[in-house]
């Protein structure tokens, strides 16, 4: 790994190359594409949260002039229940297919049951109205208690709980159980001076990306499909659409648009297979755009979760045992983030006796999708609230209590591996030293603190570095740019090649113009695709040096690369001037273009830890909570572009604060969401928030050439508990059920 002091471009803050187009409206997003003869596709969605589909009659729709195609579940190929979704989401391909278009049962209000394509939106709407669906309405199960009741209506009559000590003997809504742990928790609690046990709840929330799902698909007479869409993973859209539509992967090309947020929610497919099926039938391109209401009702929210945490400690603060029993809503199909919840809940602490138990529970809500650090915010809201309760019970400073028990290099993580270098203690020390932690608070104000953790991943990425004839460079990669990754890639390429950042242009290629690259998610892009860019740059430098060696008639090892030029090795007896890329490209053009490539499966993604400090003021008359100050501290390994690392910390903080204070799906008794729009589903807006202060800690990850750790997901983990702990500090009332919205806070204060 290169020493930080040697960097020329890494750590600088150049303007992002896609910025101008995005603020002027020139950038093309998912809904911005059109083709000649294009049709408009719409989806008919179930009006019931749980219903058997007895029949679907599309004939009325097809009789309308201008309607070119209509499909229902019967038009989609049956998918075997064997394949597991790759990429980011849990669950099977069969469930993914059924989620795109219901077969047999509608499992949530808004579940797709049919779709049409017409030459105008008005005709498409008329066509939807002409479709006849015969439902047998069933009782919905809308929360964990209802789903796990002995006599609960079954969402999937064949679902047998996996992971029980004894095999399940009858179906239930509990898809699976997972257990983990080490040591002897009973003994650990027995030997403790103090034992606390409480239950915490986080509601269903949405990722809340600004841009709704949208795509345009066209299938030609030869069966070749092209899809333009907004997605975090064009290669995943390709493989999932192929599986759902019964096509080969090679017959589908996916061209990703710019993307207006995803946060994990755009790692799967909803519209794309439907648009392909409609286009196949119509013989024309089909464009589909979700409304905001459809996004709320039919795309993956994050799991609601209920977690019971038990903790035992000595009077000096040494934690002797911790246990967690966690239930996650999966939505209508198995695949909630239970494993990540079990593994992250106590990840921050080095405790000998641990027990984690998690349940994946079906409810009549949309199938959950990934949302930044899936499973961890729910789990660590519970555990970090409990740590705060313990600190208060023991009268120990919450940072000191955490430092006393914090995981460190060489300790064993609760889920098995031995920690390498991690930045948890450095983050805690930085929080303790931060001026915001020492500011005086007034009456009605409170301060809370919490730790966040996420694993981060690497996996498959590809990149190419093309040297143009004038010496400028084009970098080709396959990760849609969500958080400024074009800039990060250009910085790393500039650092390797020794040429100015401005001379490098990064292009996001489609699935036929970039090597396979896994989704933009998992906090992996700067780490894994960055690694591919570095390798591709080194490859092209090697080629350039080899060509220069031939020109100079010396061995290749006698040529070095310095500051963007091939130079003679010191001491080499040759009278040659350094040669730039432009000169090398011009002089060696007959040898072909200079093109470096890399394709890798990145290993060693370093885990990320964070510490958040939140100051709030609570209005005891209205229950409104105002965030006064928020300090987000996180280990980034090394910040390639510090502004975009800070942006991740700030964005995650705001989303976590929204989850803590206001966001929740509200359902009526029939399982119909009552707040499917941003007027009623209250995400924080700029005027709600103070400036989020940030501190970047850099404990380099040795597995990356520049020490990068992923930073995209960890920032959303700590804000929930940090905010709740601040409210408890301000009011002396502990609220364990989120959101801490004004009526809920008022009720808690009144009950005290």
């Amino acid at each position: 790994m290169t020493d930080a002091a040697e960097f020329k471009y890494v750590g600088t803050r150049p303007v992002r190359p896609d910025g101008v187009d995005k603020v002027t409206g020139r950038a093309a997003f998912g809904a911005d594409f059109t083709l000649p003869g294009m049709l408009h596709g719409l989806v008919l969605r179930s009006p019931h949260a749980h219903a058997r589909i007895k029949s679907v009659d599309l004939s009325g729709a097809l009789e309308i002039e201008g309607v070119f195609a209509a499909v229902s579940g019967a038009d989609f190929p049956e998918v075997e229940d064997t394949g597991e979704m790759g990429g980011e989401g849990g669950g099977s391909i069969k469930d993914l297919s059924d989620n795109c278009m219901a077969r047999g049962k509608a499992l949530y209000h808004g579940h797709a049951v049919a779709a049409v394509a017409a030459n105008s939106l008005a005709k498409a709407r008329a066509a939807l109205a002409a479709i006849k669906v015969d439902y047998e309405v069933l009782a919905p199960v809308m929360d964990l208690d209802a789903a796990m009741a002995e006599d609960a209506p079954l969402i999937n009559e064949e679902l047998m709980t996996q992971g029980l000590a004894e095999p399940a003997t009858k179906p239930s809504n509990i898809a699976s159980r997972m257990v983990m742990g080490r040591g002897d928790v009973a003994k650990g609690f027995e030997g403790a001076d103090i034992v606390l046990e409480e239950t915490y709840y986080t509601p269903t929330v949405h990722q809340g990306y600004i841009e709704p799902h949208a795509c345009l698909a066209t299938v030609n007479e030869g069966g070749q499909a092209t899809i333009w869409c907004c997605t975090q993973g064009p290669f995943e859209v390709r493989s999932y659409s192929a599986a759902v539509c019964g096509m080969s992967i090679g017959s589908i090309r996916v061209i990703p648009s710019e993307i207006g947020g995803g946060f994990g929610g755009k790692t799967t497919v909803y519209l794309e297979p439907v648009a392909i099926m409609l286009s196949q039938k119509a013989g024309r391109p089909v464009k589909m755009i979700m409304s905001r209401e459809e996004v709320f009702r039919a795309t993956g929210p994050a799991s609601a979760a209920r977690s019971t945490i038990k903790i035992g400690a000595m009077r000096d603060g040494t934690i002797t045992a911790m246990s967690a029993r966690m239930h996650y809503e999966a939505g209508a199909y198995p695949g909630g983030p239970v494993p990540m919840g079990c593994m992250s809940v106590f990840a921050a602490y080095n405790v000998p006796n641990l027990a984690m138990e998690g349940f994946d529970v079906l409810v009549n809500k949309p199938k959950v999708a990934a949302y930044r650090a899936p499973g961890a915010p729910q789990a660590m809201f519970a555990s970090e609230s409990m740590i705060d309760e313990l600190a208060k019970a023991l009268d120990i400073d919450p940072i000191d209590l955490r430092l006393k028990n914090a995981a460190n290099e060489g300790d064993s993580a609760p889920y098995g591996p031995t920690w390498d270098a991690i930045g948890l203690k450095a983050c805690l020390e930085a929080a303790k030293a931060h001026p915001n932690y020492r500011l005086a608070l007034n009456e009605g104000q409170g301060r809370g603190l919490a730790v966040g953790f996420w694993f981060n991943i690497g996996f498959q990425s590809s990149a190419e570095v093309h040297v143009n004839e004038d010496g400028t460079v084009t970098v080709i990669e396959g990760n849609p740019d969500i958080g400024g990754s074009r800039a990060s890639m250009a910085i790393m390429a500039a650092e390797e090649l020794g040429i100015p950042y401005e001379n490098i242009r990064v292009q996001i290629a489609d699935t036929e113009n970039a090597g396979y690259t896994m989704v933009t998610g998992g906090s992996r892009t700067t780490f894994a695709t960055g690694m591919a860019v570095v390798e591709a740059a080194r490859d092209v430098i090697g080629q350039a040096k080899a060509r220069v060696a031939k020109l100079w008639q010396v061995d290749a090892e006698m040529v070095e690369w310095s500051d963007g030029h091939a130079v003679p090795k010191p001491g080499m007896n040759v009278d040659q001037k350094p040669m730039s890329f432009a000169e090398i490209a011009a002089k060696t053009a007959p040898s072909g273009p200079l093109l470096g490539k890399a394709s890798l499966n990145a290993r060693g993604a370093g885990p990320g830890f964070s510490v958040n400090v939140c100051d709030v003021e609570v209005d005891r008359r209205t229950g409104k909570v105002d965030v006064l100050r928020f300090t987000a501290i996180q280990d980034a390994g090394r910040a390639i572009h510090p502004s975009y690392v800070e942006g991740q910390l700030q964005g995650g903080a705001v989303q976590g604060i929204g989850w803590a204070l206001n966001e929740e799906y509200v359902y009526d008794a029939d399982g119909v969401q009552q707040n499917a729009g941003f007027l009623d589903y209250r995400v924080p807006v700029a005027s709600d928030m103070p400036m989020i202060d940030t501190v970047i800690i850099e404990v380099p990850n040795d597995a990356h050439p520049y020490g990068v750790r992923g930073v995209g997901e960890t920032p959303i983990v700590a804000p929930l508990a940090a905010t709740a702990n601040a409210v408890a500090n301000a009011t002396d009332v502990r609220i364990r059920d989120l959101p801490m919205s004004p009526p809920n806070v008022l009720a808690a204060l009144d009950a005290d």
Partner: protein
Amino acid sequence: MVRVVLPDFLQAHTGKGRDIEVNAGSYAELIASFEREAPGFEALVSKKATTVIDGEIVPDPMFDDLREDSEVCFLPKLSAG
């Protein structure tokens, strides 16, 4: 001996505990050893587990050599956003 940590579903499949020790010079040997004792182990790992070797998540472990003091942890498959 290589230290191996198994998650609950692999404990159930092998009938072994969470922390065990296995004599193997490579990841392939280690998998073969489990496969001999509990057929289906490799398929289960491939479908449901993430492999961590000596603290690093390793997406392509099949060609990795292991040291005498290596640590191989099978985690439930990670997903992320």
